[in-house]
């Protein structure tokens, strides 16, 4: 309903503008000596001022965006070891962008205002200047060289997997429209698997090779638990279409591709409990809960169920279009101490015990 009302209002505004333009046209028709449809000195002047107004608008929307939405928990509150390196690269890049944006937009709109046309004035015939062009070729080259070197360094550090760290091996298994995690068990080695071996009747839902000794102690879960401080190496698999394992708080993402195994590794550094206690997160959760309470009131008025109170959890989201319920393909991630993790994993069923005969 809101949408329809909005549209109706917009159409009315449209009609009103229309009429105003007609009046404007009629008023102008008398004293328009120049070619019809071509800007007059007055048009140049009005639009010149509007250009300055627009520059102000760009600056205002920039400032408002940063003030209102610039508190970006996903840019400053990373929960993985490599997270801060990405964040600082991001901040440096943003500063470069901000400076260039502010200056170039100023020049563009200021020139549009300052040099607005007047009859009889003649423009400066200025077709070329090698020095100037050299300057604005070389400066970007230097800045970009810096960003490229910094960026590539960061990238190589993140993507390079050091097997000697003895990372915890976890398989992330994607299917329309949910996630599973598979742990290697005591030997930290994943058993062989292929979707051709899937046997729903025997509850072999991930297609593990039942004959593979490494597969026997594998553990399949619907929540992802990670011990804090230990490197994790994810092996991604998909059984049907492309999915993408996106773990924004850990600055981690990798596609899951049917027919191949992809990988991504990181070390979680902040437990779920610790993250919930940070001031920034508490503020965010309070804000969200306020919104949810408001929404719940409306829902209750319509005799619908109220929303649950929100509590922060790390999430794994699907971030590659994968079909109808793509928008709800998620898995909870729990980062905890080694002891908590050990206790949790001990409760889970091993593969050999989960089969139905």
């Amino acid at each position, binding site marked *: 309903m809101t949408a329809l009302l909005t549209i109706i209002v917009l159409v009315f505004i449209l009609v009103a503008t229309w009429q105003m333009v007609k009046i404007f046209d009629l008023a102008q028709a008398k004293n328009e000596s120049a070619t019809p449809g071509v800007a007059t000195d007055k048009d140049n002047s009005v639009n010149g001022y509007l250009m300055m107004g627009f520059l102000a608008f760009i600056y205002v929307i920039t400032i408002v965006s940063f003030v209102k939405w610039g508190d970006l928990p996903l840019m400053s509150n990373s929960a993985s070891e490599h997270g801060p390196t990405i964040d600082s690269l991001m901040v440096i890049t943003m500063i470069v962008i901000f400076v260039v944006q502010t200056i170039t937009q100023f020049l563009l709109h200021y020139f549009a205002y300052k040099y607005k046309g007047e009859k009889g004035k003649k423009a400066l015939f200025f077709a070329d200047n090698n020095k100037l062009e050299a300057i604005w070729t070389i400066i970007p080259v230097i800045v970009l060289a810096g960003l490229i070197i910094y960026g590539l360094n960061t990238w190589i550090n993140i993507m390079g997997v050091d097997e000697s760290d003895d990372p915890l091996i976890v398989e992330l298994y994607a299917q329309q429209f949910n996630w599973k995690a598979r742990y290697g068990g005591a030997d930290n080695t994943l058993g062989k698997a292929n979707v051709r071996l899937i046997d729903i009747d025997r509850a072999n839902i991930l297609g593990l090779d039942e004959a593979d000794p490494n597969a026997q102690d594998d553990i399949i879960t619907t929540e992802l638990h990670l011990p804090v401080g230990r490197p994790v190496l994810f092996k991604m698999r998909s059984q049907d279409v492309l999915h993408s394992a996106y773990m924004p708080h850990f600055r981690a993402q990798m596609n899951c*591709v049917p027919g*191949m195994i992809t990988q991504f590794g990181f070390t979680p550094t902040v437990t779920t409990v610790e993250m919930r206690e940070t001031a920034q997160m508490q503020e965010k959760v309070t804000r969200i809960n306020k919104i949810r309470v408001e929404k719940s009131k409306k829902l209750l008025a319509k005799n619908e169920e109220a929303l649950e109170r929100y509590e922060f959890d790390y999430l794994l989201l699907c971030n590659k279009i994968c079909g109808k319920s793509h928008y709800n393909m998620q898995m909870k991630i729990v980062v905890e101490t080694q002891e908590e993790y050990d206790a949790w994993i001990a409760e889970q069923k091993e593969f050999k015990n989960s089969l139905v005969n």
Partner: protein
Amino acid sequence: MSAHADTHAHDDDHGHHHKETFVTKYIFSQDHKMIAKQYLITGTIMGVIGVLMSMMMRMQIAWPEEPNVLFEALLGKWAPDGVMDADIYLALVTIHGTIMVFFVLTAGLSGTFSNLLIPLQIGARDMASGFLNMVSYWLFFLSSVIMVISLFVEAGPAAAGWTIYPPLSALPLAQGGSGMGMTLWLVSMAIFIASSLLGSLNYIVTVINLRTKGMSMTRLPLTIWTFFITAVIGVISFPVLLSAALLLIMDRSFGTSFFLSDIFIQGEVLHYQGGSPVLFEHLFWFLGHPEVYIVILPAMGLVSEILASNSRKPIFGYRAMIASILAIAFLSTIVWGHHMFISGMNPFLGSVFTFTTLLIAIPSAVKAFNWITTLWKGNLQMNPAMLFSIGFVSTFITGGLTGIILGDSALDINVHDTYFVVAHFHLVMGISALYGMFAGIYHWYPRMFGRMLNKNLGYIHFWVTAVCAYGVFFPMHFIGMAGLPRRYYTNSNFPLFDDLANVNVIITIFALIGGVVQIIYLYNFFSSIFYGKKSVQNPWKSTTLEWTAPVEHMHGNWPGEIPHVYRWPYDYSKPGHDSDFVPQNIPLKDGEEELQH
């Protein structure tokens, strides 16, 4: 000393050869000017569909739980009781992308202005092959019709995203839209590519062979340079998409395994083995990335021309502009991997693509600075075309700068496929190219229809659109940086993002205003064809050859001899001349130097 001094000297028989009927003049026309108008009007109709879709998506994102009368009216069975279905949301995403990128900003933009301007600006009677040109348009028309028909198939239109990555696009079991809808999508695109290739080859041949006497490559207007290079990129990259589409058709219909392997879906194992979806991604983006330059380069050309003409100044750094067009074209073919940093491709390749991608910023920066310098100390005529051109430079900078983030593989990890990407590419290629197209339409409308567009409506159109474009896409960066993935039908399953809902409402309101205000433009466009004020021959006092042709269209463009060219196209406010522009067909005065820029 006008070009027309000699035009009445002898009676030119051009144009009297053909007896024109309604059909040969307006429908199966081989005249490049008529074909340009056909492209423009078809592109406009497709654009209206594409924009309507985006408005529906925005309403769904802002008010996900609420029934919407518009949905019920426009989506029918896909919106029971006015609540949008999740499948149709993805279909809207897909078809909106496809229509806007290919049908509006490739065919509608490049098709219109390459056809209109290439013969007129290089001094040719028509395209090298008028027949191929006609075939090219009608193939485009056919592909548009098929694409529109695909919206009405039983199981829904294609819904795998405009990138149609398999297996989602290959398996009807994975998604309703991957059945008949996807088949029609692929057929439509295959025909579209054929159309585009015919057009491109024609443009290339025409530019190389049919330039008038004196029109050397370094006297070509920048518009022609960009159309020419765009056509070259198209010829290099579109066939690769065609092959990808054909292989996908094979996988879908004939059981091959080019892109598919090891799939278990809906309780059954499929026979596919050994293929790779990543291969498809490579093939797709080998076109897909050059495609964004196919979209933006012609807009750059139009804008360069309009900025110079309306600043009454030469374009700054003509040769540097050509060099940067060439550099962008070359680099555009070796950066496709930046769409695939996290596709499972070898990370080393990611490094290479980061390097090449960030290099593109250099020629782009040169262009932006040259445009800004073109304004400096000009005598700016603020016609609507000029406003859209300045707007183009503004959004191109804003959108282009965030490319430095996305092109950097390390940063891409966290913003890949979020709304940050949506904001980036809409500003840098969507809005910018659209501005380029609008600028071109406002500027060359008198050349197309012999009448002027209403400038006051033009001003309102520009200013409201400009405010809305920033209002939509600027805040969108921030919800992306907060981690909100794109292509989600609703975000209400993620309380984590609840505090972004109000931003989405703001964005949607700007989007609705921006969408509705295009009605002003449509009204202006269509009513001015019949009721617009009659145009004079050269209303903007430009130097290029198209303005030396008579207002009334005629076969062969010029009565009498084709004008000869004696100078580059940017002699605006040249010292030593009384007038502030010297058309290209005016010979140099005694002792006048032709500046070599």
